């Protein structure tokens, strides 16, 4: 399903619980997770940490299948901020994959990246902002960008898949080469809509 299709609650598009719809392909015919993975490989990212999100599932699998990348599954997203700091102390680049709800879990831990100027790149799949059916996702989804700004993390927001790939490259340069703390927000509209 693309973002232009109508919402079909309970209709023909209903699928298994927890699955997302669609192939998430860009106009170039390349899936965005594959393109983002290649960009991050080009930046020599060696560690990836994550709390799963359906929107990140393909990217997570690409990283986990890569023997040159150490992947860490986390119990809470703030752990990934600390792992990224340790990786950089040891000379490696790390990326954190999280859902917008996880940004809330990270706030105090982000002090570590901000005050130490540790390179930090977070890819955040957004919930609670577009065709969201779960009200519990809305407060943190709405608070994600203001909360990041308040703690000193810069957000880059991607509305379209081609834009996302460029934005990840720009964010990676800012993070790894300019010691910035960057969250790339992947809009819910861009991601395949979750259908129950």
């Amino acid at each position, binding site marked *: 399903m693309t973002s232009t299709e109508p919402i079909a609650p309970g209709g023909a598009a209903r699928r298994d619980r927890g699955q997302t719809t669609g192939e998430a392909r860009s106009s170039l015919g390349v899936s965005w997770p594959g393109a983002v993975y290649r960009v991050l490989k080009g930046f020599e990212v060696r*560690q990836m940490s994550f709390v799963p999100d359906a929107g990140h599932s393909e990217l997570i699998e690409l990283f986990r299948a890569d023997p040159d990348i150490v992947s*860490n599954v*986390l119990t809470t997203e703030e752990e990934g901020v*600390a792992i990224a700091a340790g990786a*950089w*102390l*040891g*000379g490696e680049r790390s990326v954190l994959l999280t859902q917008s709800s996880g940004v809330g879990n990270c706030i105090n*831990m982000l002090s*570590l990246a901000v005050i130490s100027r540790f390179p930090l790149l977070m890819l955040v799949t957004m919930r609670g902002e577009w065709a969201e059916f779960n009200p519990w996702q809305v407060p943190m989804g709405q608070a994600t960008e203001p909360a990041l700004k308040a703690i000193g993390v810069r957000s880059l927001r991607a509305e379209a898949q081609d834009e996302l790939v460029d934005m990840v490259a720009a964010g990676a340069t800012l993070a790894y080469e300019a010691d910035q703390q960057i969250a790339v927000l992947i809009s819910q509209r861009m991601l395949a809509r979750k259908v129950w």
Partner: protein
Amino acid sequence: MSAMTPMLDRRQAVAALLEDRDGLLVVTGLGSPSYDVHAAGDHDGNYYLWGAMGAAALIGLGLAQARPELIVAVITGDGEQLMGLGGLATIAVARPKNLVVIVIDNGHFGETGMQRSHTGQGLEIAKVAEACGIEARIVESRAGLEEARASLRRKGKGPRLYVVKVKAENQPRSLPPRDAVHLKNRFRAHLGLGPT
């Protein structure tokens, strides 16, 4: 849990652990463990935390993954590790052979007025770690400290954790630098890594 009143002096215990440390890399949890490690002798291979409570062991994980040829010791307190209990699960699953977490356990939050912590009311972090799948030991004697020190010289089968039971008393403060960027760059330079 030990029925005995701990007899070890925290500062002497940490100094004993770090004696002839060679290439050991050390990450310290905020508060007294940072002061204890600093009092044992400042070192370019020390990364001291002054905040980011709950981060220490996970910074150690990221660092251990980046530098698998070196041994990483995280020296932290019971309160700091309690804030990152989930991190023990993440470390257990990651299984770094070169990471040793040392929890200096006085059963209290020493920095904030000596309020009793969970460990002061019966919780044993070594058992939590063991349940996660981490090789864990309780240290209550000089002989136990010697065994822990020896483990900092070699890799294990997986991650290791020592809980060192110490007297609940505040020692004179021995303050490491608070400039986190300085500490980061100093640590990286120690590993031959340049600034950005």
